[in-house]
């Protein structure tokens, strides 16, 4: 095919889809205004931003803000903690949410199913302030329920909330606790789309329930799982600011401080918006690298990739 023919094919394709592009106009305009103008404003990451001079008028400072972040005394620790929490949540909370969705889908008891489905998402609405109160009632060293049990059994009470060993687990578990039902909703929605005739076929072939889940249910929602994982990888350096900010205290800063809490203390509370924006870009670079890598991986294994 010569050049001309190729471009005419492309042209034909575009022409065939012209009504599609019509659908695109408004969302695309939206993206340009509400997503790309802020990115353009994001140049303050490379500037000494002065409100009176505006975005364009402020002085360029090159990579200074990035340097401030990377040279922070705690940089390595912040990165480690952030990755620990976001991967911890990905590895722990996500499978639980998927299991919960499948269990709701597969259960033979309609009442149980209904009750779980109606209640499971509710903890999502409890703010972290409330969750902290609950965690305190459970884990407080003086009179927490768990420590009462420990003491009744003759043990010594443990200050879970201020112990650097226990704190990461508390963060990951409490996140799963609060969010698993909510995260499961999307998988439940995906399960509802499974064509039941597939199950008929499986039954005819004598598959048991375990095999049915293994070979039909899970593969059917795999595209959604893949997309969710890919998207979460893209924001891997967001480890849950609201939660950590509520739960951490000075004794556990060494395992509790994450990039976002650092930026909050250093950047937002101290009028260093260039720094805050620079850290945002830094997080984006890591996220983009992870997406590029894992998207490739997904494509190689024949999955539905992001692009």
């Amino acid at each position, binding site marked *: 095919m010569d050049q001309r023919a190729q471009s005419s094919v492309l042209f034909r394709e575009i022409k065939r889809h012209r009504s599609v592009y019509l659908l695109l106009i408004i969302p695309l305009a939206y993206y340009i205004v509400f997503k790309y103008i802020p990115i353009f404003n994001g140049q303050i990451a490379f500037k000494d931003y002065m409100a009176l001079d505006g975005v364009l008028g402020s002085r360029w400072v090159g990579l200074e803000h990035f340097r401030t972040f990377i040279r922070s005394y*705690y940089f390595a620790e912040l990165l480690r903690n952030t990755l620990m929490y976001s991967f911890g949540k990905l590895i722990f909370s996500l499978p639980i949410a998927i299991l919960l969705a499948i269990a709701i889908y597969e259960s033979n008891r309609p009442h149980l199913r209904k009750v779980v489905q109606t209640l499971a998402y509710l903890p999502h609405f409890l703010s972290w302030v409330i969750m902290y109160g609950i965690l305190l009632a459970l884990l407080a060293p003086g009179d927490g329920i768990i420590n009462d049990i420990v003491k009744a059994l003759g043990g010594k009470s443990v200050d879970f909330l201020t112990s650097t060993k226990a704190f990461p687990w508390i963060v990951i578990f409490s996140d799963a606790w609060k969010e698993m039902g909510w995260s499961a909703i999307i998988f439940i929605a995906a399960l509802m789309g499974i064509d039941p005739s597939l199950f008929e076929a499986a039954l005819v072939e004598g598959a048991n329930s375990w095999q049915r889940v293994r070979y039909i249910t899970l593969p059917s929602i795999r595209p959604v799982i893949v997309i969710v994982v890919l998207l979460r990888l893209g924001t891997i350096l967001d480890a849950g600011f609201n939660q950590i900010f509520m739960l951490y205290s*000075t004794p556990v800063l060494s395992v509790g401080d994450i990039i976002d809490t650092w930026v909050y203390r250093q950047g937002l509370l101290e*009028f260093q918006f260039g720094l805050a924006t620079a850290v945002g870009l830094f997080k984006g670079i890591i996220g983009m690298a992870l997406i590029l890598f894992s998207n490739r991986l997904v494509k190689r294994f024949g999955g539905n990739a992001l692009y």
Partner: protein
Amino acid sequence: MKKQRVLWICLVAVLSLITLPVFSQGAKDSAATGPVAIELWYGAAVTEAGPPPADWVGYSIIKEKLNIDLKLTALPSNESDQDVKIQAAAAANNLPDLFMVRRDVLGRLVGQGLVAPVDDLYAKMPIRTATHYDSVSQSHARFAGKSYGLADPGSINKNEGLLIRKDWLDNLGLAVPTTLDELMDVLRAFTYDDPDGNGKNDTYGYGAFQEINNYEAWPGRRLEPIFGAFGVDGTWSLKAADPGLMVLKDGFFDAMVFLKKMVDEGVMDPNWLAYKKDDFRAAWKQGRFGVMREQNAAFAAESNYAPFDKNFPNGEWIVVDAPIGPGGHASIGPYTASFRIYAISAKAEKAGKKDKIAALLEWMASDEGYYLLGWGVEGVNYTLDKNGVPVADQIANRDLAFTGSVGQTVTQLRNMVFYNGDIELLARYPKYITATSKKEMSALEVLRTMQTKTWTAAIGSDTLPIPNADLKRFYEQGLSEFITGKRVLNRTNWNAWIEQFKKLGGQSWNDSAVAFAAEHGLLI
């Protein structure tokens, strides 16, 4: 094709129908002629009570008398949120005309050229200046020689005290402790000798939580009486002979050792590191501990004392002297003059609104403004007793009284008019008889007692330079780890930690603050 076009038009129509009314929602700018619009971002007196209603009488009075169209915005309910909101508006050069702001943030706004100096306004507000702005106040928000904020009096000085359960002391036959060692004995007895006689091992000696600010560094306000016994209470020493960071002074290590001993012996409520303010306050009302540092009204005001009174009709807290440490030191803690700063944006100055703002503030200081913003409308929200003090108990509808749910909304601006004068204090802290034990209580008397105790003068210590986030974290985290045992507290480790702290910027922080204090005449 036609159908498609129709559908498309419908889509756009629906979209715009839905968004347009929402776009146009919101405050409309007043006409150019009419009254001068002044946008005020205020710190609410009772954040959870809600703003003044749209038909608040204050709006029309201010419009009539001053030709000002006042637009009120309640700042968010905690300091960090306030900082974020103000700084975001500042970044877009969109600050309101008049706004409350913390000193740290104000300093940065001044550096950006976004705030107008107010030195010329004091003379334009003679009444207000007489009651609100003394020389300390006028220099509080001074940057590079100019005053950039009107610093209204904030909370009352020395309004906290060391409190002990007198009934527990009596039950155990103990005397009021005067020295740190005696205090330790009392704490042990409170923890292990069942002071409430309920047969359960459910009490502790000392109750606290971490409450930190610029001049009361870790472990913070609630434990200052312990650190005061070693002469190292507060972040800063402002003694001319030996100024600088307390943490670098000799006594600090000893104070840490003592605190560690309290924690290790179990006489501190072990929840202290996990508590937030509400948890702490709920805990003493449940009789968990027998010694604490608490604010006068948080302890003695009617609504705060009531649950304790109901739970422990025989319970009694007394305000005691600060315990004397081994070196003869004693202090409840450092005190500084606290202020609430209102700043005027450079934008407002440019629009020529400064004089109008001064007129507004001066009106607030007049009798009319003072009572209207402080207590509401006479006969509706308050009545005056025979001494001329506003009281709430003659108001038939309790919701309307200035202490009630509706009354609180129309007195949200009272922080802008109050200056801790006698009338205010009498109105704020009336005498009352407790519901269950029928005791006479007065938060004002408690306050007066608290103020007689030994405190460390540290005026201006809240204006000293603050460290960057990394150094601050190193400082607080290190101290707390020595107490939790993550770091072993001994001389060698301590010295090593101090060295590292100095190297990380602690030394230059110390030096710059000492220079600042000397330059501004803060050393005593």
